[in-house]
Structure formats: C-alpha cells, structure tokens
C-alpha cells in the first residue's frame, strides 16, 4: 500500500500532524476547570470569593488581602463603632464643620448623588431611625455571643418615629466644602447599610484587577459582582426564590456586572403575626410594604445596592420612574402577590427556574 513516493516528505507531514495534535491537546488542557473558592466571615456577613484561572497560591493570597480590606472597611463604615463613620456621626449634631474621613467621603459623595436620583427613597441620613428599629447590623456582625442580633419584641415608639420624620434628615443637610463637612440637621446620622456592601465590592474588584485577576466573583451575603468568565463560558448566577427552597431564576453575567437583591426575608422579626423587615421607608418610618424582593443588575455594585433598596421602597407603582431616573437597565420586582414586574430587557436575559410559568407584568423599556 504505497501512499507516498517520497519518504522525507512523509516525515514532514508526520511532524506537522504531531504539532497540530499537541496544540489541540494543550488547548483542551487550558480550558480545565480551576475555580478557586473561599468563604470569609468578614464585613458583617459571609463573603464568598471565586477566582477562575489563577494559580491557587496567587488566588489564596489575593483572598487574604481582600479579607483584610473588608475587615478594615467594616470598622470604618460602621455607623456607631469607633471608626471613621462613627466619629463623624458623633460630630454631626454639633452643626460645626470638621474634616471628613478620606475613607468615608468618596462613598458619601456617591451616596448623595444616588439619594438625589432615587428621589430620596434611598436615604443614608436616617441612621437614627434605623437604630430605633434596631435591626442592627452591628451586633449581628461582631459575633459577640450574647448581643447577637437582638430583634426587638416590641415595636419602636410611634412618637419617636414621628419626631424623626418631622426633622426629616436627608443628604441635603450635609454641606461639603473640599474635605470639610457639616450638618445643619441635628437628627442626621449616616448609615450606609444600603450602599456599603456594593461600594466595598467595587473596591475589592478594583483590587483584584490591580493584581491582574480578571475572572472572579465577589459575593457578599448574596449580593455580588462578577467579572470576566469561567473559562470559555460566562459566569452563571442563580437567584434564590424569596419564599421557597431553590432558585426562582438564573442568568449569565456579561463581562462585568453586579446583581443585588433586596428582600423582606433578609432580616426581620415578627410581632403579633406581622412581619417587620429591615428595609425602612423614609417617608413613613416603617418597613416598606407591598414588595417581596427587588433584583437589580448594574455594572456598578454601589449603584445596584442603593437601587435595590430604593426600588423596594418605591414599590410596584413607582419603581419604573425611579429606575429610569437612576439610569438602571435591568430590574425585577416581585410584589406581595408573587407577581413579577420587570422591564423587557430583564425579561430577555433572565431564565426562570420554576415548574409553572410565573405571572409577569412587563414595564415599558427603561
């Protein structure tokens, strides 16, 4: 069976084929699954970090650095601890100007802008109201055994709530000149609970990028930002069902996006058969009603964080207008009847994981 006449030419062909096979095999090898995953008890919650395609040592080191950062941020951003924000909150009632902390001011400026865009529904100036309800993130996070998240058996005093509402502290009460800041409202206390997680994740992602890590997820207590891919496919994210076990939907991350969900199931207590959750409506002083959860996708985790809270408070009737003014592109709101409100772009990319098709109400495009 003489296939070739020329022996040296056949050697050349053989060599070419072997090279091709080697290239193919090595290409297969590089797509192998290598996700490094670690859970950290930091930032008042569980932070899960997933890194794809890096050497385990490098991923481990990056994770350790992020853990330190999150611990630091948690201290300086706690509203009543002995950190930067705690100090500022002590000084605001004096109405005098003082130097704002550089670890707080950038987030404060961003929060002020988002508060404006959300028509003050996202209002970080109502720290006193949040303290009154005592869903206290502080106790929950510090892990001090006995004081762990003591939910109040009683509701707060309605008069105290009314007093705080009358004084109406907002971000407009803050006057910032350079790094000098003062408040003209003695009732103002900053609580960045509805943006700090997002802002912290953004900082952490920035740090990962500086270290040359471009494929990762940072998930802090269920809210996350994902960058890059997992090998040759996109990161695949499940969205947990707010009322049942398992997932309600899933979606894929395109390049670099954050997914934040605010829900009434996250922190709550029950009093006389009624559920009181932690998302307070600054207009009423009571937990916002009519919504089970709001999921927002945005490039920026801080925006997604603040927006999820603002839209939860806005409710089924107003979410669309607020989402538009905040410049959001993907929103899903589940109301108390489990009806799903969302914009068409969101409907396009979300995949429901339910047995029966859900009741969906599409808004006009955002």
């Amino acid at each position, binding site marked *: 069976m003489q296939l070739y006449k020329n022996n040296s030419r056949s050697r050349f062909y053989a060599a070419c084929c072997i090279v091709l096979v080697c290239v193919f095999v090595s290409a297969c090898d590089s797509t192998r699954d290598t996700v490094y995953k670690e859970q950290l*008890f930091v930032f008042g919650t*569980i932070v899960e970090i997933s890194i794809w395609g890096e050497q385990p040592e490098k991923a481990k080191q990056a994770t350790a650095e992020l853990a330190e950062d999150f611990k630091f941020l948690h201290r300086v951003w706690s509203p009543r601890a002995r950190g930067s924000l705690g100090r500022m909150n002590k000084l605001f009632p004096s109405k005098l100007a003082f130097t704002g902390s550089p670890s707080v001011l950038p987030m404060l400026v961003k929060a002020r802008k988002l508060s404006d865009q959300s028509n003050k529904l996202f209002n970080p100036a109502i720290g006193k109201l949040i303290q009154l309800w005592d869903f206290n993130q502080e106790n929950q996070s510090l892990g001090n055994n006995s004081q*762990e998240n003591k939910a109040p058996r009683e509701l707060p005093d309605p008069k105290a709530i009314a007093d705080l509402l009358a004084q109406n502290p907002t971000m407009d009460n803050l006057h910032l000149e350079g790094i000098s800041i003062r408040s003209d409202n003695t009732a103002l206390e900053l609580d960045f609970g509805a943006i700090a997680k997002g802002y912290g994740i953004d900082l952490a992602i920035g740090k990962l990028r500086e270290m040359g890590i471009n494929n990762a997820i940072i998930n802090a207590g269920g*809210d996350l930002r994902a960058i890059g891919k997992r090998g040759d496919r996109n*990161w695949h994210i*499940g969205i947990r069902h707010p009322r049942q*076990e*398992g997932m309600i939907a899933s979606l894929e991350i395109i390049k670099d996006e954050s997914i934040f969900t605010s829900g009434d199931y996250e922190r709550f207590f029950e009093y006389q058969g009624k559920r009181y959750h932690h998302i307070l409506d600054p207009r009423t002083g009571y937990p916002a009603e009519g919504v089970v959860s709001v999921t927002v996708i945005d490039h920026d985790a801080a925006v997604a964080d603040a927006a999820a809270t603002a839209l939860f408070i806005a409710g089924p009737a107003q979410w669309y207008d607020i989402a538009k003014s905040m410049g959001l592109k993907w929103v899903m709101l589940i109301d108390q009847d489990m009806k799903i409100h969302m914009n068409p772009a969101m409907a396009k990319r979300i995949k429901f994981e339910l047995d029966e098709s859900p009741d969906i109400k599409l808004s006009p495009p955002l």
Partner: protein
Amino acid sequence: MIVVAKTFINQMTKGDVFVLAMALVFLVILYVVFWRVASHAGEYIHIVAKGGAVEKLSLLQNREVTIEGQLGNSRLQIEGGRVRFLSSPCENKLCIHQGWASLSGELIACLPNRISVSIEGQNSHFDTVNF
C-alpha cells in the same frame, strides 16, 4: 462464515491490531473519566468552621453531623441530596430558617457560630447564588 472471518483476521496487519488496541484503551479512558464523574453527579458539601477547619461530605449519604463552631455545636442534616441546619447555639436561628439547600453554588451559613456550608459539584448548577 468462520472462513470469511479468518481471511479478514489474516489480512489484518500489525498496525491494524495496534490501532484497534489503542481505540479500546481510548474507550476505557473515556468511560472512566466521564462516567465516574457522572456517578458523583450528586454534589458534595464543603463545610468551613472557625475560619478554617474544612470538611467535605457527600450529599448522597444521609446522615447528621455535628460541627463545632465559635459558640458551640451546630447540627447539620444531610438527606436526599439536600442539607440543612438542624440546630445551632445562635440566638436568632436564621441558619435554621434558611431551610434546605440542594443545588451546587448554594450556601447556607450560621454567621454567629462561624459555620458556612456550601454545595459544590462537578455538574455545577450555578457558580454562585444571589439572594
């Protein structure tokens, strides 16, 4: 029939036998690699307690396990490919309220007791879960 088969076998060269042998080896490798994974398709749980102590348990084996955390012992129940907190020394019992978790990518945890339980597996449903 046998005669026909014999002529074929006689016609086969050393190279033919070699190729057939290689093909069979290749097949065996395929079965080992892809079917062993499939039999593991049920995921396993990854327990992190006290910021380090790691345990890996199969989700297929029904059992109850006791994990030592910062406050005391938490009990986990594994049943029918799912896992949940049965008891925990924490005050708010949020970990127990989280209920069952069964899909890879899911995570249940008791923050006060510093115990996290994440589900992982080869057939990963999700890379992570938003809630």
